[in-house]
């Protein structure tokens, strides 16, 4: 079953003085694949500037813009109307380990089988877990990795920040969805299962009625390759379904950062992020 969701994502930067110039890239546009249809999408910036769009290496749509007039507030608003995909049930068995470990597979998915900026596959805990969990079918392994991750980490906002790595999260034993995903990806990759980071939005209420606008969240989950890219939510363990709106994919958080840029002005702005989601059908 699919849902039709309206999402509004507003990010506001407030500076203590004039910013003379800023150059930015936003990755907040829902993708148009994996069964997800984008019926409408707009990105708007205040101060008003033209926006240039392109698709990056990972297939994510990027909105780039520069603001070269002095300003003290920068507001980036993304509004979309998306028809989300229904969940794929996990198959009981699928790919064999032999196929995954074949040289051609390993070469084709190399970037999703090795360490990246936030994910170290040589962390001793990751190596141990991979050795244990890789028994049986690869699909079984995927499920077990999710379970193991939820055993290692308690969901707690504020314990970590955007720069925390998988190893850092394991040190703390706590984190948010970003950290759950990094840890799970680390183990999956070490098992030999290509795994990539997926980011987007989540409607929090599975029983949502039509017309209620609720506070949604930016959310992260992962996709594991088992012959096709299969979405998995290691934070909740629940299926990735119509409540998930997919925006970007990459090796880790570094590749999907929703807003990145440089500016010339007083440092450390205050940032306010609001996501509102409404089920319209």
């Amino acid at each position: 079953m699919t849902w039709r969701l309206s999402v509004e994502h507003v990010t506001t930067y407030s500076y203590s003085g004039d910013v003379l110039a800023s150059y930015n890239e936003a990755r907040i546009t829902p993708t148009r694949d994996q069964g997800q249809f984008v019926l409408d999408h707009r990105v708007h910036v205040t101060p008003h500037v033209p926006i240039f769009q392109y698709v990056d290496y990972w297939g994510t749509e990027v909105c780039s813009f520069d603001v070269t007039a002095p300003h003290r507030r920068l507001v980036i608003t993304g509004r979309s109307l998306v028809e989300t995909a229904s969940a794929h049930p996990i198959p009981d068995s699928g790919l064999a380990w032999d196929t995954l470990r074949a040289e051609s597979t390993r070469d084709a998915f190399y970037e999703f089988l090795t360490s990246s900026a936030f994910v170290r596959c040589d962390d001793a805990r990751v190596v141990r877990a991979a050795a244990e969990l890789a028994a049986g079918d690869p699909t079984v392994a995927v499920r077990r990795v999710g379970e193991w991750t939820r055993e290692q980490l308690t969901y707690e906002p504020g314990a970590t920040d955007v720069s925390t790595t998988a190893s850092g999260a394991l040190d703390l034993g706590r984190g948010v969805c970003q950290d759950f995903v990094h840890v799970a990806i680390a183990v999956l990759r070490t098992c030999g299962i290509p795994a990539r980071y997926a980011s987007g939005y989540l409607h929090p209420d599975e029983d949502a009625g039509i017309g209620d606008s609720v506070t949604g969240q930016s959310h992260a989950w992962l996709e594991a390759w088992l012959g096709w890219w299969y979405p998995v939510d290691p934070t909740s363990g629940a299926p990735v379904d119509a409540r998930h709106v997919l925006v970007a994919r990459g090796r880790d958080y570094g590749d999907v950062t929703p807003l990145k840029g440089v500016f010339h002005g007083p440092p450390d702005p205050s940032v306010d992020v609001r996501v509102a989601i409404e089920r319209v059908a």
Partner: protein
Amino acid sequence: MRVVGDLLDGYRIGTGWDEMLEPSHQPRTHYRMLFEQIQTLSRADFDERCGMRDRVFSDRGVTFAFSGEEERPFPLDLVPRIISAAEWEIVERGVGQRVLALERFLADVYGAGEIMRDRVVPRRLVVTSKHFHRAVAGVEPAGGVRVHVAGIDLVRDGNGRLCVLEDNVRTPSGISYVVENRRAMTHVFPELFASHRVRPVSDYPSQLLEALCAATPAGVSEPTVVVLTPGVHNAAYFEHSFLAGQMGVELVEGRDLVCRDNRVFMRTTAGDEQVDVVYRRVDDEYLDPLHFRGDSMLGCVGLVNAARAGNVAIANFVGNGVADDKAIYPYVPAMIDYYLGERPVLDNVETYDLDDTDVRAWALDHVDRLVWKPVDGSGGQGLVIGPQAADAQLAKLATAVDANPRAWIAQSPVALSTAPTYVDGAMGPRHLDLRPFALHDGERVWVVPGGLTRVALPEGSLVVNSSQGGGSKDTWVLARLIDDAVVVDEEDVADPAPPLLTRQPPDPGPSPGHQAAQQQQ
């Protein structure tokens, strides 16, 4: 010719290939004239010419900053290196072929990735290259050209065959020294030029400008070109300034440029002027704080997106480093076959991909017989020559290779050719290489006739890089001869000079003798 000097008397070649002498110690055909002419000079004569060369260079401010040291005059050995016309034709074809293959490779890896899908080049090598810049994936460079300037380093093996040692397609440097060396030589040894037909190199800057203008974004008829330099403290600043001056374009630093709405402007006294082509001598990592190093003060924010939007051409394009990554080098012959359907005109030096476990094991077994190069080294740094290295050094090397095999390649040693070089008052054989420079304008590849010959000055040394204290020679490509008449390329022929008008000598003014005569009356 009367043999006066004894400069070449003690010149003995070893078993390797010498540029000037055959194993019988007779000069090769194309060196015969030079061989005779050098012998008409005494050592004092030669020293005098060396002094003249030093003066020419210091007056013109031709300098180079060796690593960690102050700027010094660029070292030029006065014995030219001569290449026959026939051999040069092979070099031209080989270098041109190589550049075109590398262009196709770059367009492919930043586009559809077919060569990786077809498993001709392992994807893992491409995506783990430090210079594979995902920020320019999917970008169509202006004019379709990524490699506007290439420096393909060539060496001669023990059999005298030229082969490719290394490709340089990021910011190859040295062309300014090629031009300055030639200029100095014409001052110091005019008689040698009179007896040889040497093809000129001085039109490189105008050819470069044409190639840059051909790479302009569509619709711009008179493009504004700039040379982007890191500034006066950069070791190659002389070259940046030289090229900008010779092309007649502005030399800018990052702070002179600003991007707005995906267009690039330079700050002038009359306001901001749009820039169409940036010939940048700043490395990728420092070029755009938005996509690369955020702490760089040398680049211009937004430059990459301006190129993506098709509003500016960047020469050489961003991300070329994956093509001259030393670990990719072994696959270039395969690229030539895959993209061009040809066999390589110039061979690679035998190189081993250490990421392959079996190959690595074999190479480490023969650690003292191979030459080891760090993939990220430049200017010869970190190079380990197995046959010359101490055991402790080799042990350290083996550990490093095992720890990170992707960071190393191993090559069979090449016995670089030698040529007579004047060191400490005597002519002795010294090893050398050759860096021809090629320009690509989107339609054809033009190779400068000549190039930078780099010489390792210490006897027996194989390290020729300028930053490690090497020297250079003027490189002469002789014009073709058909039936004893010189065949000169159309480009080389100047228009015949108009006839001179008879002129009067300048007005000498009032004659002093005239006044003196008056006084005496």
